[in-house]
């Protein structure tokens, strides 16, 4: 009996000791959570965080991602309820701006390294009225993947203009190869990675987009019509039964060597590399029509913001400052091929394909996906309008002119700058 009591006393002492010790340790290091929608990159981001922990032993950051489609809603609920993560991935433009406007994100004016290391264009994606609210983190690029072996076999060269691209497609089709593998079963891909991929080549980059957004030109001007015309151009070169070809099918048609080209994004790189197709493949920039400069859709995707209600703001700001450094950008680039750091300092990527894709936009004008910056805050939103129009043009149920009119008329219902063109 006595022995037992002594034993329990010992256990108690040990327990209290452990508790005290852990309390002391946690007083020294602060732990922050990092919310994200990138469930696929847990290991990679943890390695990035480890590098930060090495130089900042007093701060621990725990990566805690949510299922991508639920992220916006979950994050908002957490923030409203006061249980939001200290640091979080912030979507570019509208979604992020809404959170900032409601006061959930800390303004980052004057954050060390932010202005020096990031361009106006990439900072704008996470700013509202010139106040930055997140550090630009990752971007994705768009282009056309091609089967190098098939191009060699049919004596084809990388097309430099849109007209050449169509000739290449014609040659391939005549030889019994599917020119482009993309389809419209999943709907979003025809809009997001075909139409918005080629769009800036026909209307121009950021400057041109601003003309539409400020109401200088209507959304159904000749340039927009020519972009929809481009979709009509490629429609005959899509796989037979393209209405039933999903995004995944399109990737497979390309990987099986049955289609020679695939309109895609840099995020496909990792998947294509791991699929190890038995032919050589590479990417080229979606070419502009004769006489126009090639513009690449280089889309700012994720920023990193700080919760304005976080108890560890100081530690959070330290992390965000570290993120603006070249060191962080280099680690990110090495760890997550296909998602590019937005740091202005030129970096080299270890993955050859990711590097090839990255090189496409260097020295060229770039812009975000057309509807993201301004056209998503009303109903019907620009994304849905371009999607419906693009699908209809590819299918042949709308002419390019009708598609552009449809976009203009839809936006007229709520987008004030363009309402003066109302008929």
């Amino acid at each position, binding site marked *: 009996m006595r022995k037992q009591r002594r034993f329990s006393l010992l256990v108690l002492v040990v327990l209290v000791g452990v508790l005290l010790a852990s309390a002391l340790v946690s007083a020294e290091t602060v732990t922050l959570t990092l919310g994200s929608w990138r469930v696929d990159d847990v290991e990679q981001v943890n390695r990035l965080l480890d590098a930060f922990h090495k130089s900042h032993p007093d701060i621990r950051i725990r990566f805690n991602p949510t299922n991508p489609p639920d992220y916006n809603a979950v994050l908002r609920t957490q923030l409203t309820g006061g249980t939001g993560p200290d640091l979080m991935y912030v979507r570019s433009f509208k979604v992020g701006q809404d959170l900032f406007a409601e006061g959930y994100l800390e303004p980052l004016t004057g954050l060390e390294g932010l202005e020096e290391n990031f361009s106006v264009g990439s900072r704008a994606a996470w700013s509202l009225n010139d106040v930055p609210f997140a550090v630009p983190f990752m971007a994705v690029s768009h282009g056309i993947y091609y089967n190098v072996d098939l191009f060699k076999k049919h004596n084809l060269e990388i097309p430099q203009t849109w007209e050449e691209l169509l000739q290449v497609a014609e040659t391939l089709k005549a030889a019994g190869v599917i020119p482009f593998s993309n389809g419209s079963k999943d709907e979003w891909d025809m809009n997001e990675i075909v139409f918005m991929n080629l769009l800036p080549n026909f209307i121009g980059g950021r400057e041109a987009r601003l003309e539409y957004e400020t109401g200088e030109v209507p959304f159904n001007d000749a340039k927009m019509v020519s972009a929809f015309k481009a979709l009509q151009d490629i429609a005959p070169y899509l796989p037979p039964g393209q209405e*039933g070809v999903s995004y995944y099918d399109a990737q497979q048609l390309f990987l099986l060597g049955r289609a020679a080209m695939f309109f895609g994004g840099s995020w496909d790189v990792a998947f294509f590399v791991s699929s190890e197709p038995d032919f050589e493949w590479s990417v080229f920039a979606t070419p502009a029509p004769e006489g126009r400069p090639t513009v690449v859709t280089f889309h700012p995707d994720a920023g990193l913001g700080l919760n304005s209600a976080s108890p560890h703001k100081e530690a959070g700001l330290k992390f965000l400052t570290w993120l603006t450094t070249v060191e962080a950008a280099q680690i990110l680039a090495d760890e997550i091929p296909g998602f590019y750091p937005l740091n202005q300092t030129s970096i080299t990527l270890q993955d050859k394909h990711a590097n090839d894709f990255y090189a496409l936009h260097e020295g060229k004008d770039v812009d975000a996906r057309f509807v993201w910056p301004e056209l998503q805050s009303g109903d019907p939103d620009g994304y849905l309008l371009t999607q419906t129009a693009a699908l209809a043009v590819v299918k042949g149920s709308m002419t390019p002119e009708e598609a552009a009119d449809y976009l203009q008329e839809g936006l007229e219902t709520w987008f004030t700058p363009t309402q003066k063109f109302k008929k």
Partner: protein
Amino acid sequence: MAQAKRRFRKDHWFFFTIPALVIYVWFMAFPLFNSMRMSFYQGTGLIPTQFVGLQNYVELFTNPLFRDRLLGALKNTCILFAICMGIQNTLGLLFANILAGRLKGRSVFRTIIFLPATMSVLVTGFLWKLILNPHWGAVNQILVRFGLKQFEGYPWLGKPETAMIMVGLVTAWQWVGIPTMIFLAGFQGISEDVLEAASIDGASALQIFWKVKLPLLTPVIGLVAVMTFVGNFNAFDIVFAMTNARGAPEYSTDIMGTLFYRIGIAGQHPVAQPNMGVGASIATVIFFILFLGVSMWMYFRERGSRVQ
């Protein structure tokens, strides 16, 4: 005192229902009424807080953005219901009639017919998506093999004209086992005497089916119809698995379930900001449609049994 005790004994059956009642109220009735309450609110986040009265319903029925989708979803759900009634339940009746007879290897057929119903909808959806694929799908390859060249690369799920029919047929294929089993039980419940009497009177097998079995089976048919009706108006998974939550292509497979999911839970890609209030009002509309359908069935059943 003794009297009170007796009364307690007489009424104490009530206490046995309490556990079930608590579970039912907490997990079924309360969420149902809470969802109806939510349809009078607006706001962002998971719990809309701003009371707007009937505004969500006004939006739903007058704003063309919502109204067109609601009418489209209603139409498509009715198509789904028609296919399930016309094909799934008719086949179920036919199979049950065959299985109730003296067929060799009955249990083998019974297993085969019921097997799809045991599979996950996501699995069936995925399998049929592959089978109907324009490039590597079996359906088109078989059709082309039989000389129907026009079906080479035909996108069954990509054309608005055929997509909903395909989804309906897959649903029918998967669930045909359920009505078969219910009808089979119904057929087995018909007394041998009646059938024997009919055949002695000189009725043919067809006449027995139409004039004897079918009328006796009416209550079961009603039950199956109501089950199909409820199932179709709550369906979501098969469309989600085979096309997508937007009811691609061109909203031709958009049913009540996907419409509710898109507006109330997931939001539209890529902003993905759900509108809980309007979503809840759609859920309430679905509830009233189901309520109306089931009430009608119960009314006719009551009347039918009274006549008998």
